[in-house]
């Protein structure tokens, strides 16, 4: 079965128009070829989760979309515009925001500066008070140095700061890593709410239990390829297969 067929099949079931279209995406770190032709779509307003084992290439996929991988090939269309050749600052300004797995909190900036750092690219971002509702810790530590936050607080800050920008397409790389269960639940609620407000979210998650509470559709990545894809409703039917893929 060709890859494209897998990718498109579930997409039809989803809502809204196609916002991101990835075709034959390949990527390299120096000499090593990591992505070998990734194909998938994301429709406006849905939450799509990439699943896969450690090192499958999930993060690399997000980075390639964002344009921060040295060498990449294939096609990535955002709102029908080809962005595979664009530089990452242009891509960001088109309305894609990325929250990296290593969080990327800036040590030389305090929490407030970290939060205010990403420029607003369009209307419609979350106002600060809402952000503080979501993450009360941040409000308390507003004047601390960014990297003096605890691991989990840094994760919150990393998510919070891209909600402000007004980008409507969010890519979150393992946002729950290192977070306490309470906070994970909160993030789940936030994602659900963002979705209601019209955000589109591409999520990478190891925590399958969490993903299942928020995602509309799943793709499974292995060895730099999409090997399967199904919607949330098909989840139960696919559980066995999934266990095999992820080694749960």
């Amino acid at each position, binding site marked *: 079965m060709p890859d494209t067929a897998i990718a498109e099949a579930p997409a039809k079931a989803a809502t809204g128009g196609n916002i991101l279209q990835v075709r034959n995406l390949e990527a390299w770190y120096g000499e090593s070829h990591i992505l070998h032709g990734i194909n998938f779509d994301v429709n406006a307003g849905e939450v799509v989760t990439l699943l896969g084992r450690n090192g499958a290439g999930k993060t690399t996929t997000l980075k390639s979309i964002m344009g921060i991988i040295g060498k990449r090939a294939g096609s990535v269309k955002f709102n029908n515009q080809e962005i595979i050749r664009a530089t990452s600052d242009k891509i*960001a300004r088109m309305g894609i925001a990325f929250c990296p797995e290593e969080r990327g909190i800036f040590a030389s900036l305090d929490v407030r500066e970290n939060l205010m*750092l990403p420029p607003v690219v369009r209307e419609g971002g979350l106002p600060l008070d809402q952000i503080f509702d979501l993450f009360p810790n941040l409000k308390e530590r507003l004047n601390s140095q960014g990297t003096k936050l605890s691991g989990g607080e840094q994760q919150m800050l990393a998510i919070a700061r891209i909600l402000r920008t007004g980008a409507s397409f969010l890519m979150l790389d393992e946002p729950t890593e290192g977070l306490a269960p309470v906070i994970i639940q909160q993030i789940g609620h936030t994602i659900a709410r963002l979705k209601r407000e019209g955000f589109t979210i591409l999520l990478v998650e190891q925590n399958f239990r969490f993903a299942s509470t928020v995602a509309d559709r799943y793709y499974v990545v292995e060895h730099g390829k999409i090997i399967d894809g199904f919607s949330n409703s098909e989840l139960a039917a696919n559980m066995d297969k999934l266990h095999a893929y992820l080694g749960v």
Partner: protein
Amino acid sequence: MQALYAQLLVGLINGSFYALLSLGLAVIFGMLNIINFAHGALYMMGAFVAYFLLNLGGINYWWALLLAPIIVGIFGMILERTMLQWLTGLDHLYGLLLTFGIALIVQGVFQNYFGSSGLPYAIPDQLKGGMNLGFMFLPIYRGWVVVFSLVVCLATWYLIEKTQLGAYLRAATENPTLVRAFGINVPRMITLTYGLGVGLAALAGVLSAPINQVRPLMGADLIIVVFAVVVIGGMGSIMGSIITGFALGVIEGLTKYFYPEASNTVVFVLMVLVLLVKPTGLTGRAA
């Protein structure tokens, strides 16, 4: 006692050069993570550009104050685009060596064409003469240097520490890729920053042209002292280098009075002492 006041004031004047130079160095180090060894050479270029503007183009000191930093700044930006750019993410050492090489080339070329003893540059008429302060004769030009550099220093500090642009810059130092992925054209910003730092050096060059000889090697020895200022202030700390710059000028002035033989050494003594007590300089952020 009067003599002492005079020495303090004179020290402050020298301090303003240290402050301006180390400020540019701190901006460049703080933002680009490059130890700009070419700083002394660019300072020298600033003075030379002022000389040429006057002698070839008939452009006076006041315009030179504006134009020389721009011209040298553009030169710096070309350097950044063609060479320094390729060193992002590498160890400090490479930037240091590259800029050291650039300094040798620039100084060598100037020496070839203008010899090493230097060229004269007169004090602008408006600033000639001096005031008798009672305890000393203060050349007006020197007074102007202090005031002007203080203003420039504070303006630069405000720009970097208090504006959004400054936050971008600081963030880009740590993780340029990510900042770029937030939608900021980091390479352009870095180029401009380097231009700014270099422009500050050139500005100091123009300021010093009427006081010192316009010589190809005028910056070569200064650079080490200026490094020390930046280190004492805490690498990359803007306020740290401004304050240390002025303070060092004063301390050096006092040394010249009490024990002149040590006046070139005092900065290093100070550096050792400061680093012994505060391992990352006076205001340095932890490594």
